[in-house]
């Protein structure tokens, strides 16, 4: 019960911001279907992508002919790898991890819990629960937005709604991985600003390793170091298939971050 109360309190503090982000993510994804329709469906998107230089194709995370091959679902998946989507969603996850632990240590509000018969692992578990819930809400908001756009725009092409489930699982695992690492940073740091800096650095480097590996063969052997190498919404949305290895890697990265954070937080001195 204490865990539920602490998690509610932590989520409650940023509820307005989170709600705005969820609406933003849903709106962004709802635009995908009308945008695809305005380009003449999947074939039009494919023509557009083929006209782009390879570097821009990599930025769009799509190869020539992909949209033709994968149809409407493949075209719509671009909304889940778009930098704006990644910025919105990962900012919410990292922001929560930073604010709820390092931020609370910085302000001293964490003492409201830890001065009472609450163990540090219990207090930490509330933060983990917050990251998990934030990720679930973001994944659902994206999927819901996409469905809303499809229902309104009704673009040509086939779309398997059941493939939204592996897509949501896949996106949630990215949030879990980044959130877990952000919690580890938050447990070690004493200011939320530092955590956000570290996490943004990690995500940006990870993104560009994945991006440059697509356009520069020399970097291809290092692609596995990027978390985005294990994130393929196009495959999830077109085939409903997510490689187990990718799920495992993202899941374990998140778990490693969470466990590291637990050990660090349980042993550290709280800042004055």
């Amino acid at each position, binding site marked *: 019960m204490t865990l539920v*109360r602490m998690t509610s309190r932590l989520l409650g503090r940023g509820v307005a911001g989170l709600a705005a982000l969820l609406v933003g993510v849903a709106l962004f994804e709802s635009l995908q279907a009308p945008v695809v329709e305005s380009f003449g469906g999947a074939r039009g998107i494919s023509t557009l992508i083929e006209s782009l230089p390879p570097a821009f194709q990599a930025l769009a995370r799509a190869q020539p002919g992909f949209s033709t091959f994968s149809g409407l679902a493949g075209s719509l998946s671009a909304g889940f790898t778009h930098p704006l989507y990644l910025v919105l969603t990962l900012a919410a996850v990292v922001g929560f991890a930073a604010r709820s632990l390092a931020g609370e240590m910085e302000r001293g509000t964490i003492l409201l819990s830890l001065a009472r018969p609450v163990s540090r692992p219990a207090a930490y578990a509330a933060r983990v629960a917050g990251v998990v819930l934030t990720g679930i809400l973001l994944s659902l908001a994206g999927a819901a937005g996409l469905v809303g756009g499809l229902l309104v725009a009704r673009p040509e092409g086939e779309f398997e709604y059941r493939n939204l489930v592996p897509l949501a699982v896949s996106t949630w695992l990215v949030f879990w991985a980044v959130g877990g690492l952000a919690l580890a940073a938050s447990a070690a740091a004493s200011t939320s600003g530092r955590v956000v800096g570290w996490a943004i650095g990690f995500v940006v480097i990870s993104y560009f390793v994945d991006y440059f590996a697509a356009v520069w063969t020399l970097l291809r052997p290092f692609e596995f170091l990027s978390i985005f190498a294990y994130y393929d919404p196009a495959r999830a949305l077109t085939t409903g298939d997510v490689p187990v290895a990718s799920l495992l890697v993202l899941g374990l990265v998140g778990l490693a971050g969470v466990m590291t954070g637990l050990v660090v937080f349980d042993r550290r001195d709280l800042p004055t």
Partner: protein
Amino acid sequence: MSTPTGQQAVIITSGLTKRYGRIDALTALDLAVPNGVIYGFLGPNGAGKTTAIRLLMGFIRPSAGRAAIFGHDTWRDGVAARRELGFLVNAESLYPDLSGRDQLDYAASISGRPPVLRRRLLDALELSDDALGRRLGSYSKGMRQKLALTAALQHDPALLILDEPTDGLDPLIQHAFEEILRERRDAGRTVFMSSHDLAEVERICERVAVARGGRLILEAAITDLTRRHRRTAEVRFAGPVPASLAEQPRVTLVRQEGSHATLAVDGDVTPLVRYLAGTDMTDLLLPPPRLEDIFLELYDTHGVNGATAEAAGTAISTRRRP
């Protein structure tokens, strides 16, 4: 474990030490705080008071030694140690987005005990229902302090740990709060508090520990301190000052002008008063010793390890570790 006075100890520290790199924030603190008292922990800035309190709360890890509350190690078994405890958080550390009432409800919900004293505290501290309905952002410093105090005491904990509890309170509310602390003490609760307000400590505390530079330099009952402290007496006689006055035990004649004498008296004044009763004394001025004088004397740069501390009639702590 019991205290030197034979009472059951609520807080026990032995060799409690905290180092930050090369800096010794607290060195080998040995304390035994008895049950059912208001205990003052004094010292200037940098004395180690806050470090000691943070160690007691399990917020930081000891570099050496240990601290226990109700027999539970505060670092290894912190949850059990904090089960019967109320702690005053910094008023600036309260959640700014919550109303006062929500803040108190949240504190009560994770304390696991009902807020049985809330109404009594709110009335005594003059925190209105209207104010409780507002967010903390609109609170003054004093109101935040009242709210933090209510949050710390509302569940009637067996032990209260308070760091500068009356900071920001006006004198009337300060006295009301002191009355609450006495009530809790009379109900068998224990209060461990640090304060810079020596007059306040003198009014409400039974025992004090004094730290300096991270070390405990004194631990005593307030009554012992004041009784044994060197006091100044002004005496006026009908005739000349008797020659035998300066020969009285533990009395030093500081100044003599005609029939008026200024004396320094170490410890108990009863023998002097008895002696003066047999003379032609016409007036005696013997102001009570103040904790502030004792404290300042103790902190005199040259006195801490030498004559001044002895003059204060107190022994510098040389208690051994158990």
